[in-house]
């Protein structure tokens, strides 16, 4: 043990003696690790954000659509609300149109349900089902230069002349519809009755949101709908999450591939560094062997050099990556694009540990071959080497 400690110290001093090369190699490794860690942090933020989003919006709700995505009769709402365990079935109409000459989605629900889709930040909710009023996300409103209590013109393919709606409140950006529809587009929330007029969907619903009394009856309700109405598609929070998960998993795979390439590059850099080190030290290897160092002990010295580089690179990379992840999540993503991406910044031991582990493994593997060669150098030849 003491012997190994001394040999490690020898390796450390060897590295310390070549500061520039050591520094550059460590930097090379740390770039790979930093990219891995920072991308991992962004991905983790996305996961947490998506989960909480789906959870708050859907909770113990069930989304029902037709399998061919055609609108269904509002009558289905009444049928579904009769299934035991169902607290309420809410019809939703979705369509597209133009608001003040920008494209927007129109979302219509019974007015008492609007808050469930779009959390109102300022102003009030729609006063009555037939009032010509709407709610917009603050972001979209700001872009269009619309303020609370001003009037916007909403045009759809059915109402060419358009309808003037008063903006009574601003809602939060995001929400289920942003996730379900298209992300950044503007959303205008109106009452179900306004929606029927604007989108010409009288007596129809594009989807029905079902709230159950409690989550324990969830699966029995889902099964009952599936059994009774085979041409309806049913999705629960879990289904939506699974879909989102599979997208996020693909993103993770891409992240991993990018990072893997940079780690391989770092590994080649380490290999180069260790090979150079051995070449310079060939005479010393001869001396070490002549004073009785075994091939294993020589192997150990250069593996230790590789490992030290890996640990230093891993630590630096983890720190840089965490910093980069922070800057990306907190400063870049919310401001860089036309729409805001607000992700939580989560420092977790997992990406840091992974980065460190990968750096150490990569540098271990890449120093293995040159170190093995070093351990096999015959002392006579090494001593003769100038």
């Amino acid at each position, binding site marked *: 043990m*003491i*012997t190994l400690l*001394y040999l490690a110290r*020898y390796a450390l*001093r*060897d590295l310390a*003696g070549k500061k520039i090369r050591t520094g550059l190699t460590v930097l090379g490794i740390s770039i790979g690790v930093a990219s891995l860690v920072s991308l991992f942090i962004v991905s983790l933020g996305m996961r947490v954000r998506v989960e909480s989003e789906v959870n708050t919006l859907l909770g113990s709700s069930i989304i029902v659509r037709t399998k061919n995505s055609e609108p269904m009769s509002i009558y289905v709402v009444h049928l579904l609300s009769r299934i035991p365990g169902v607290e309420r079935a809410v019809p939703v109409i979705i369509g597209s149109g133009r608001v003040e000459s920008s494209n927007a989605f129109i979302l219509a629900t019974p007015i008492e349900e609007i808050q469930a889709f779009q959390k109102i930040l300022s102003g009030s909710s729609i006063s009555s089902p037939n009032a010509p009023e709407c709610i917009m996300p603050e972001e979209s409103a700001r872009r269009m230069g619309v303020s609370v209590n001003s009037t916007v013109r909403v045009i759809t393919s059915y109402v060419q002349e358009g309808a003037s709606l008063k903006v009574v409140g601003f809602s939060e950006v995001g929400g289920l519809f942003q996730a379900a529809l298209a992300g950044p587009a503007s959303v205008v929330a109106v009452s179900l009755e306004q929606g029927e007029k604007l989108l010409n969907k009288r007596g129809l619903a594009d989807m029905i949101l079902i709230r159950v009394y409690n989550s324990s009856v969830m699966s029995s309700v889902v099964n009952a709908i599936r059994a009774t109405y085979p041409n309806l598609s049913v999705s629960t929070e879990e289904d939506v999450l699974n879909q989102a998960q599979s997208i996020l998993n693909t993103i993770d795979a891409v992240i991993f591939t990018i990072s893997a390439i940079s780690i391989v590059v770092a590994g080649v850099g380490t290999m180069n560094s260790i090979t150079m080190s051995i070449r310079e030290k060939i*005479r*010393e290897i*001869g*001396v*070490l*062997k*002549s*004073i*009785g*160092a*075994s*091939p*294993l*002990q020589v192997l150990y010295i250069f593996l230790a050099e590789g490992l030290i580089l890996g640990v230093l690179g891993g630590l630096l990379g983890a720190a840089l990556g965490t910093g980069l992840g922070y800057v990306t999540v907190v400063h870049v993503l919310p401001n860089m694009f036309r729409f805001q991406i607000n992700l939580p910044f989560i420092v977790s031991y997992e990406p840091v540990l992974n980065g460190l582990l990968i750096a150490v493994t990569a540098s271990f593997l890449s120093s293995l071959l040159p170190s093995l060669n070093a351990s096999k150098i*015959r*002392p*006579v030849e090494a*001593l003769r080497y100038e």
Partner: protein
Amino acid sequence: MSSPALECRDVSKTYVMGRDIEVKALKNVSLRIEKGDFVSIIGPSGSGKSTLLHIAGTLDKPTSGKVLIDGVDVTGLSESQLSVFRKNKIGFIFQFFNLLTNLSALENVMLPMLLSKRYTAKEARLKALYLLRLVGFQEDRLKNTPNRLSGGQQQKVAIARALANNPAYILADEPTGNLDVSSSAEIVTILRLLNGFGNTIIIVTHNVELTKVTNRVLFMNDGHIYEEAPRSFLDSVPMEDESTMLKKKIQLDLLKLEKENVERLFKSRAISGETYEKALKSIEEKEARVKQ
């Protein structure tokens, strides 16, 4: 009767350098060195000294024959068995000191003890300190790395290192070859003293001076080892023959070339008349000597 420190029986070593070229570095060398001996092996370059040293140090294996160190036949041992053997039985001293540059003087001496795993760090440190005192190393430089030590100081560290694991013998390869006169004298004195304390020492050198301090001198020439100095190879060289006549002619041609060069330089005014005269005179003097 105890076994000798080193015994070589009919040891031969042939190097194969590419196709069809073989160099016989050692030819049936038999040798016996007793414990407590102080032996020098002297011979010109290419006589097989270094090969014998490497084989005696288990750094190389003989092509045929047997090597016994402290009564143990090492001929058939594997590379890692040899490393264990080398660590415990052999101390090396090299012409270029060969200390480990990253380690301090003290650590250099400690390392073989730590590698052997027989000593704790504390024991190794204490023993290294004593050994360095024994060889007269300046104690205020214990923490210096080799590049901050003089050649003589470095060689003292190397000697202390060679003694670290109580070897069966110390092999010294031109131990004074890279030292000035006073350092050389100091190192020789130390080696002699250590031999007086019972250490077996084998010096390999081509410096005749060094053989004066050893108890026994072995001569090497052309892969053979002799107890008595072989007849000088110079005795067999005739002073004048056809080849010398040829060389004389070549030398004269060379001087003629030089003369032409100097004349051209003078004509093109690259050199002054004075320089020209001087150069010409020197060339003519040389010509006269060759013709003699």
